[in-house]
């Protein structure tokens, strides 16, 4: 194994550059080194001006998403040796405005998230003193998968519909809405329906499926969206056919 590998890193310095330029760095190629280790090596030893986000380096905080050789990846869970002999292209996540170098602006998602009301909604809250809401392991399994989202934004970066129409609510937010809709303790599905069934909601998704392919936590947002389409469509038919009281 060669002991060095080239990282071609997208640099964008606002005010100086009109568009990103690629810059090459040689970093050590070692077993167990993630792409992120290569980037921190650059920052610590070669070029302190390179900007990127990271924190947990164990694939759970969701901050280190970037485009690696064209694919959206968590750079702390993607390894240099898998790309040997290189070079490896590291670019910011697609479909988000670039703030600087590898840092993108996810403000859009942060604004959309509360609109789908990702919290438990109950008609009546029972007091904590009465103990927990019972939920069997099977009921837990109903939504568990959709609760695994780390908000890493890889799915948004992979979704062409979001690229073309940034008003699309998008995979992770819809999956989180479904996470609560399917939770046996929640009674807020009707409250989330308006946003989900708006033109920017589920109907904008054409089931490209790339969101689920990109998701590092197997959340399968594509499935969440299609399932809600089925739910919403069935509901619409019921609304049309049944008199109000019978629904």
């Amino acid at each position: 194994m060669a002991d060095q590998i080239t990282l071609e890193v997208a640099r964008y310095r606002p005010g100086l550059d009109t568009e990103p330029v690629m810059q090459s760095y040689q970093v050590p190629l070692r077993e167990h080194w993630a792409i992120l280790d290569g980037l921190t090596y650059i920052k610590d030893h070669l070029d302190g001006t390179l900007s990127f986000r990271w924190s947990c380096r164990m694939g759970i905080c969701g901050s280190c998403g970037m485009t690696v050789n064209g694919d959206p990846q968590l750079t702390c869970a993607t390894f240099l040796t898998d790309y040997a002999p290189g070079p490896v292209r590291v670019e910011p996540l697609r479909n988000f405005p670039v703030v600087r170098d590898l840092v993108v602006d996810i403000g859009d998602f942060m604004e959309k998230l509360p609109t789908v009301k990702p919290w438990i909604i109950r008609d009546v809250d029972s007091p904590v003193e009465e103990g927990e809401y019972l939920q069997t392991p099977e009921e837990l399994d109903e939504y568990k998968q959709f609760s695994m989202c780390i908000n890493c934004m890889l799915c948004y970066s992979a979704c062409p519909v979001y690229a073309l129409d940034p008003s699309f609510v998008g995979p992770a937010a819809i999956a989180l809405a479904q996470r609560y809709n399917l939770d046996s303790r929640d009674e807020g599905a009707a409250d989330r329906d308006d946003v989900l069934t708006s033109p920017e909601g589920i109907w904008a998704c054409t089931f490209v499926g790339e969101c689920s392919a990109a998701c590092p936590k197997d959340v399968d947002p594509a499935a969440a969206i299609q399932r809600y389409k089925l739910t919403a469509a069935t509901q619409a038919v019921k609304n049309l056919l049944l008199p109000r009281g019978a629904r």
Partner: protein
Amino acid sequence: MSLYHRPIPIFWWLERRSYLVFVLRELSSVFIAWFVVYLLLLINAVSGGSAEYERFLDRSGHWWVVAINVIALLFVLLHSVTWFGLAPKAIVARLRGRRVPPRQIAVAHYAAWLVLSAVIAWVILR
């Protein structure tokens, strides 16, 4: 803050293989529409009497009609395969309270496809 917005190329779907497959999958719908037209021509020919029907058979043997149909068949197969692959995601089926694994739903779809195709072929070729 001056943010950089990456422009989207017109043919963005040439950038990634998976996007290309997606666009081809979507285009399969055009060939399904073509099939409907072709089917209606056939029905029209059958109701026009046996001479009409023979003429239809002749025309359907033209090299370019066959070529279109071969391409259409490939697209339709792409449609079927992707459809059966994705349908299990939207459908949550339950058997005796247990959730049926997506794989089994896909297998059921393929089985239905086989049986139906056999029945149709039998009806036509009988």
